[in-house]
């Protein structure tokens, strides 16, 4: 498909604007002005048709099943979108007088309270713009906490080998050394190794629970005790909170700080890769370090509370992605206390049901109850006999209108496929997915070339990624 630069024709304009009175800005020295701006020139119908055509080349939740493990691709309710576009929210300037934004501040205050209740934490900041930024905020607060106690030798963050890549990247960017902790035979944190690696240098342990294997870490109380005994703090990566809503709260299992992904658990749309939102919650001993401002309440008036003297400072401009806060708030009010618990129940039911359907097709590294997702591997017999790999199976699924699960993650499972159906999929969708997977695995044996050369029906077929990295073409050049 052509790009907007190729579609350009001189003299076209996609919007009607009033005339200007002058030819050029006044009083600005000529050498400070640019000679040209070589952007494309397009009409409104051209632009609309271009982007509608592009949209049709995307898979999306509203198009079909999207079982991308660890991403919680649940349905995004339409009421959220409608509410986010109300002028009373969309057209608020973040620096308007407080008395003109009481509704927005009340919404943020209530969301802070709700997230504190759902995670078992004492105080919440909505400022972080994404999960990774929530992690950064949490780890910087942990650093500030140790420093405030004069505890300056804590230079290490312990992270399980199954963790998301953002965990070690965050710890490292916050100035810590990353110490990897192996998983045990059951897919949990290896307690012997954890004991050996904890010590006076430990600043924190970062954990996702349920883990990226979709397994609930049942030693969590012991892990928390060991971490705290060593003087470290326990960080909760909230990527998988969807599995335990209303069933168990990170704050009650010993975590000191959590981040929550509103774009996963709380249904705000993923937007083709953002915007997300990653609020952080803390226990009282970390509250002085929260980024400001947060929202305070004084009777029926709401106001912004700047960060205190020990605050790590702001991690983003203003108060975070308010548009995402309001979608998440709408979702929480829609489902309420019982509905949110049902979310976890149905997500876990769907995952276990789908695991039941595919467990004889794929190899199952850990025979345990699944939570919201599970990890399976391509059977070695198929790989050895046919040369078909997990990537090929993933690509073949695209031909059936199904987005591939997450593949080759976590790194500790060979030929991994991480499947998260979410609670918003019906039994028919799960049955159909299992049937397609069975068909693809059979094709892998009977016609391996068909699978290895998949996909066949998508807008483009397999792309040359090596070439893209070797000879980067990162922009249009005439």
């Amino acid at each position, binding site marked *: *498909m052509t790009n907007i630069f190729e579609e350009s024709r001189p003299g076209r*304009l*996609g919007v009607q604007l009033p005339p*200007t009175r*002058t030819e*050029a800005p006044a*009083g600005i020295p000529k050498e400070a002005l*640019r000679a040209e*701006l070589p952007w494309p020139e*397009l009409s409104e119908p051209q632009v609309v048709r271009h982007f*509608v055509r*592009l*949209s*049709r*080349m*995307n*898979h999306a939740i509203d198009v079909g099943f*999207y079982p991308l493990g660890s991403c919680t691709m649940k349905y*995004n309710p339409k009421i959220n979108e409608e*509410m986010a576009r*109300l*002028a*009373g929210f969309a*057209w608020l*300037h*973040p*620096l*308007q007088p407080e008395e003109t934004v009481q*509704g*927005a501040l*009340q919404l943020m205050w209530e969301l802070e309270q709700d997230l504190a209740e759902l995670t078992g934490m004492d105080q919440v900041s909505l400022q972080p*713009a*994404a999960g990774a930024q929530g992690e950064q905020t949490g780890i910087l607060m942990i*650093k500030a906490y140790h420093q405030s106690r004069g505890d300056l030798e804590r230079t290490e963050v312990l992270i399980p080998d199954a963790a998301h*890549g953002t965990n070690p*990247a965050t*710890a490292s960017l916050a*100035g810590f050394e990353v110490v990897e902790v192996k998983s045990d035979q059951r897919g949990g944190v290896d307690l012997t190794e954890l004991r050996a690696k904890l010590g006076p240098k430990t600043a924190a342990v970062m954990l996702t629970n349920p883990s990226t294997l979709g397994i609930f870490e049942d030693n969590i*109380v012991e892990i928390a005790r060991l971490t705290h005994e060593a003087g470290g703090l326990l960080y909760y990566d909230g990527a998988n909170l969807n599995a335990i809503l209303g069933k*168990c709260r990170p704050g009650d*299992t010993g975590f000191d700080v959590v981040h929550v992904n509103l774009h996963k658990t709380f249904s705000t749309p*993923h937007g*083709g890769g953002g915007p997300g939102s990653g609020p952080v919650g803390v226990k009282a001993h970390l509250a002085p370090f929260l980024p400001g401002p947060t929202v305070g309440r004084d009777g029926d008036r709401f106001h912004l509370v700047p960060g205190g003297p020990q605050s790590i*400072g702001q991690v*983003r*401009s203003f*108060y975070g992605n308010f548009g*995402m806060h309001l979608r998440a708030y709408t979702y929480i*009010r829609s489902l*309420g206390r019982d509905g949110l618990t049902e979310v976890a129940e149905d997500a*876990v039911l769907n995952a276990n049901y789908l695991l039941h359907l595919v467990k004889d097709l794929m190899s199952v590294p850990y025979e345990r*109850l699944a939570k919201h997702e599970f990890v399976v591997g391509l059977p070695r017999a198929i790989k050895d006999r046919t040369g078909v790999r997990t990537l090929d199976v*993933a690509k073949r699924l*695209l031909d059936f209108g199904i*987005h591939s699960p997450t593949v080759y993650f976590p790194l500790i499972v060979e030929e991994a496929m991480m499947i998260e159906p979410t609670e918003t999929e019906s039994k028919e969708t799960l049955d159909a997915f299992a049937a397609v997977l069975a068909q693809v695995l059979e094709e892998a044996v009977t016609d391996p070339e068909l699978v290895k050369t998949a996909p066949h029906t*998508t807008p483009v*077929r397999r*792309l040359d990624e090596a070439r893209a990295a070797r000879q*980067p073409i990162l922009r*249009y050049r005439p």
Partner: protein
Amino acid sequence: MLAALDISAIDDLFSDLPAEVRLNRALDLPLGMPEMELDRHVRALAEQNRNLTQLVSFLGAGVYDRFIPAAVGEILRRAEFYTSYTPYQPEVSQGTLQAIWEFQSLVATLYGLDVAQASLYDGATAAAEAVMVAVAETGRTSVVVARSVDPQVRGVIRTYARGRPLAIQELPLARDLSDLNALGRLLSQETAALVIQQPSFLGAIEPVAEMVEMAHRQGALAVVVADPIAHAWLEPPGAYGADLAVGEGQGLGVPPSFGGPYVGLMAAREGLVRRLPGRIVGATVDVDGKSGFVLTLQTREQHIRRQRATSNICTNQGLIALAATVYMSLLGPEGLRRVALLSHEGAQDLKARLLALPGVSALGPAPTFYEFAVNLPRPAALVNQELLAKGFIGGRALGDDYPELGPGSWLLAVTEKRSAAEIAAFADAVGAVL
């Protein structure tokens, strides 16, 4: 489904939660609401606010009340865009990938630099990430940030710097511009980056070319925080040698939305591409030779490089970058120039009217674009309160962020949305409350 799993109740699926960690009570949250009631409830909250369609605003300070063509919102509502995720499977994500590649092309062109990445959370985090690029590139640990840079941006840079042994020095103001004599003293062989803003937070056109040259003489990288609308007219940072340009993309078709979501822009010269944070899309071909797009240079990123990644960024601001891409495509060079010039004309008009009022003076002699600062004979915060009673949102009172400018210092922005009549009425109202 329960029968297939050979269990009698869903709760059996949670038997792996140890008894001592279970929440054995209902959540302390309100009951759920049917959609009709929910709609009423959330609308009622929205109606407690007084928004920019009800009040006439001259407030900017990094976020602007600009016109958004209807086609932008229409494209954003395409579910194929907003309910998809990061394009991990490029064969079924060409729409998102090509749109990002077009975004990168437009941003790189706007800033006059070689490459742009796929967006960051906002302008402030983009600036902080650019500082980290400069630190990694130079191996130096001191950063000079002009006080004329947006206080929000400076705040985020300070927070990001907590992770590393970085020293941040502020370049003071000399009236309405950065103090070049002080800059000469602050820059050294230890300086990794100089961060400046054009136009400055105070609206002034800074002598950026000279400042970039001074940074380069010491081997430091120059990071320019560049407003995209004003750069319809202003010399692009790449043309005067900036190594990185970053900016807040909110003005490009994104509503103010009480602070977010916005989109951070970042462009750089070619040599820095492998140090850039976040996603980058590249063009390539498929097995049939058909052209297409993929996420590329991923060995920089956290999901491959883990603790050695250039940044921890995973999700960027895909949908907001799309909004900006549609906006830039609709406006083109002529539309953007017109939006910027209309804003500039309005600002010049307002500035002249305010300076004609007794006791009001300009902050300094430097030319301004569509935002400018004045000194009032009364505290700006009080003036704002009285203007609100007349239906206006006044400018940003600068005294809290810039005590050196005094309580009367006041920053005003005019966009293409402000009519001549609104500007005149506002100037009259200011005259009445002084």
